[in-house]
């Protein structure tokens, strides 16, 4: 067990103790006021030029520099008290070069002209050392320079400007709602990220970006001391590429869940208090809910659940670096191989399945103006009418599949990590026929409705997966017939997506988000959203997960 992996394994409750180990939430702890300071782009341009020039003099044929201030703030509470408040800053620069046809990268927290020049020289030295083991030279897809440009996440209220006391008050109010409704314990937290990143390259781009993300969440637990049984229910919020406005609930952002569940789906704003109250009631109900009878069921999956299934079984499977074998040693490869793509008729899913990759979707975690190698972002089809049509790729991969452009999905979690191909927002397009979730359930004879992100696991080629959820309801003869427990479904990706039988319309569409998606060595996190409407899958294998340990 590596120490850095620890947090991935601990529950939210233990997370606060090991806060500095959360990827993306490391950095230096600072006072909150400092998070509002900005570095002048003119200063960053001068620093970037120092690195570009030093690399060129040392023999680089291409160089890019990323000067980044990565800010984060997290607030952790449990029941009636604050556990931890931390404001972090990580400031430094990473220089990536090609020399002798080989990549080299060096990073430094010495953000001075001399510091950047030294990092540039070291990056060139590393590239030259590595070129001895290089069998095939790096080829970059051409990219025009954009000159001096900027982009900002379109937020209404910068979360870093909101007083911490207000955030604490919100979390403690949510905890109180949970406790009032029967929770034994409640842990709540709020994560906020601001990436102030400056990119410059020998292509002639100087790109200044200001990116914001936010994630309120909680875990409500109910303990039944007499039986020794405990159950929990996590928040049904979604991490978003929004400001603090996400935490002001608006009626138009709420979508009613199936009749009889009390569930509410959230779009661009979230009612943390209402969800905490419902979570406590549902956690309590889970203690006595019936255990599922294993077998084949028609599944009706809520967008806040389905997002993770899309992420794991489509998003990752269609990353070109995996397909080509660059991630073979850790994250794995992909079943969606180039030969399948080249046939132009590989039926990934049923005809209803249309999957779009998008780096521009407003409110999404993946939205940026330009990626971390200076490519302007856009959207493109991955699966059209069920057929695999494209992958997600970056500049040094495009040529390998005979294409002349990057898709703009290159990302590094900080200045000190090298950028590489990461997932765009990958979303299932809503159905074109008018259909609400109740309309969908009306036609299901024997099924299970699943909401929320639960246990998830998929193999290294993205064939076989198993997913749980937060709440499960049995569907009998077109109606919700009560809560059940111990549910997980196991399926093969292609069979599962080909069993897609109905998709609700646009009015049910909303985004799910993954805030800490890990990939690469050393491992890096990225944040990405997945939109969908409630979707039905027929005849999926459901197992019962209850065990006794004495």
């Amino acid at each position: 067990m590596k120490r850095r992996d620890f947090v991935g394994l601990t529950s939210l409750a233990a997370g606060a103790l090991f806060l500095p180990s959360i990827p993306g939430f490391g950095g230096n702890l600072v006072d909150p006021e400092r998070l509002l300071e900005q570095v002048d782009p003119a200063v960053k341009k001068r620093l970037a030029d120092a690195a570009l020039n030093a690399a060129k003099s040392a023999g680089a044929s291409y160089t890019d520099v990323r000067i980044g201030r990565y800010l984060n703030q997290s607030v952790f509470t449990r029941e009636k008290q604050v556990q931890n408040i931390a404001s972090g800053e990580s400031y430094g620069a990473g220089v990536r070069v090609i020399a002798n046809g080989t990549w080299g990268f060096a990073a430094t927290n010495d953000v001075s002209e001399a510091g950047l020049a030294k990092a540039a020289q070291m990056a060139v030295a590393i590239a030259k050392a590595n070129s001895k083991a290089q069998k095939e030279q790096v080829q970059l897809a051409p990219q025009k320079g954009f000159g001096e440009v900027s982009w900002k996440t379109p937020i209404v209220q910068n979360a870093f400007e909101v007083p911490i006391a207000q955030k604490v008050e919100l979390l403690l109010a949510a905890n109180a709602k949970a406790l009032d409704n029967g929770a034994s314990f409640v842990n709540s937290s709020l994560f906020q990220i601001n990436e102030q990143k400056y990119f410059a390259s020998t292509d002639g781009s100087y790109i200044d970006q200001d990116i914001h993300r936010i994630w309120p969440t909680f875990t409500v637990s109910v303990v039944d001391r007499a039986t020794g049984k405990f159950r929990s229910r996590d928040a049904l919020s979604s991490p978003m590429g929004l400001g603090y406005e996400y935490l002001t609930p608006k009626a138009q952002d709420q979508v009613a869940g199936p009749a009889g569940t009390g569930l509410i789906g959230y779009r661009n704003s979230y009612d943390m208090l209402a969800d905490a109250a419902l979570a406590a009631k549902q956690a309590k109900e889970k203690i006595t809910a019936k255990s599922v009878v294993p077998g084949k069921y028609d599944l009706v999956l809520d967008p806040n659940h389905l997002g993770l299934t899309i992420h794991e079984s489509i998003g990752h499977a269609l990353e070109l670096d995996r397909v080509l074998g660059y991630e073979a040693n850790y994250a794995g490869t992909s079943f969606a191989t180039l030969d399948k793509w080249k046939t132009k008729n590989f039926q990934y899913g049923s005809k209803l399945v249309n999957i779009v990759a998008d780096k521009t979707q407003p409110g999404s975690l993946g939205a940026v103006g330009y990626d971390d190698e200076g490519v302007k972002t856009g959207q493109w089809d991955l699966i059209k009418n069920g057929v695999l049509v494209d992958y997600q790729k970056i500049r040094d991969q495009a040529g390998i599949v005979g294409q002349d452009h990057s898709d703009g999905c290159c990302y590094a979690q900080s200045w000190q990590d090298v950028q590489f191909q990461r997932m765009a927002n990958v979303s299932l397009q809503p159905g074109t026929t008018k259909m609400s979730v109740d309309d969908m359930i009306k036609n299901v004879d024997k099924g299970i409705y699943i909401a929320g992100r639960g246990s998830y696991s998929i193999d290294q080629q993205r064939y076989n997966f198993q997913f749980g959820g937060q709440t499960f309801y049995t569907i009998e003869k077109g109606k919700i017939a009560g809560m059940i427990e111990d549910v997980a479904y196991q399926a093969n990706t292609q069979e599962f997506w080909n069993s897609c039988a109905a998709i609700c319309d646009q009015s049910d569409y909303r985004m799910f988000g993954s805030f800490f998606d890990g990939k690469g060595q050393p491992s890096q996190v990225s944040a990405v959203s997945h939109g969908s409407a409630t979707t039905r899958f027929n005849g999926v294998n459901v197992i019962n997960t209850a065990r006794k340990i004495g």
Partner: protein
Amino acid sequence: MAILSQEQAQAILQKVLSFSKADECQATLTGRTAGNIRYARNNVSTAGHSDNVSLAVESRYGKRSGVATCNQFDDDTLRRCVQRAEETAKLAPEDPEYMPMLGPQQYLTPNSFAAKTAGDTADARAQAAADSIDLCVARKLTVAGFLENSTSFRALRNSKGLQAYQPETFVDFSVTVRTPDGTGSGYAVADYTDVGKFNAKALTQIAADKAAGSVGAKAMEPGKYTVILEPAALVSDEGLLNRLFYELGAREADEGRSFLSKKGGGNKLGQKLFDERITIYSDPTNLEAPGRVFDDEGQPVKKMTWVEKGVLKNLYYSRFWAQKSKATATAFPSNFIMSGGTQSTADLIKGTAKGILVTRLWYIRDVDPQSLLVTGLTRDGTFYIENGKIKHPVKNFRFNESPVIMLNNIEAIGKPVRLGGNLVPPLKIRDFTFTSLSDAV
């Protein structure tokens, strides 16, 4: 600048404390310099180097606490950093779980630093990658690997007189070899304190043999099987014992929300939970897998037995929870050691009539915290054993199993090896639950 000596680090920390006006002040200085190389498709893909050093100052007024940091070390910057921590503390809410800072402590002498690792170069890493790639090219196989060397230090000092310092080196290597047609895959992984023990070629050879040997895998029915789990399946990025090791918290158990909670209240301390051959402890000065001798608060990390002959002997108590429960506080360890015997994995195979050899597990996630049930899949070398020999490769399985149940179904325990900074033996387990097949290779 990233790696400071004990004297250099303590001189800076002493100066920081001299600027403090708070009731209590603790300063922590950390530095890390790391170099890595990644390769895939028989080619170097990326490589990098990073340096970082940072100072964190925690100031306290009563039960209020504030933290500030900086990464410049002139007097003015240090003074401003202390002032910021003090200003933040004055505005913070009182911490109901406040514990006073510790006074001077006695620590074990650390052995977590190897000069050879600290002196390693980008050229040496490139050579290791070249050795690994050349071997695979010669055997017409495709390799992907990762090597990272790091040197780091942590130094603590506080206004109660506590002082601590520890340097550390770490070498992390893993390699996956695949057949060009994608029908075979093998894996090897290792980590060291001293890079002198590292041999890229030997590890690549193991992965290459498994890749070549796993071509033509046959499908077997999912169900309960005797398995031999290699150490990489038990503790690595995805290990079956990871969750168990880190679920030893007393507070969660006492609160009724852990597999160690007792029906009716309390925890399972003193109960026999596993087979009597299971003993798990931590030891920061273990020669093979040294760890940290102090934690972030400055508590000494000592040798600590968690499970002895299957009985739960100790749980992790934070200082606050220890005080509340009238127990002794425990520093959280950085390594776990599971006792074993003398048999290698090969010996375990020889003694197996029918079973499955598992090289590596993948994507292990919690399914039910009540029973610690987890799910995941086999990967990169899964073989059927019959009459003491590897008979043929088998298709990968998904499992749903609880490590608690697994450690009650022990058939044999092999010789512990270092992995992820821990020492863990290969385990032979009966009735291990595979629930479905995967086409993944």
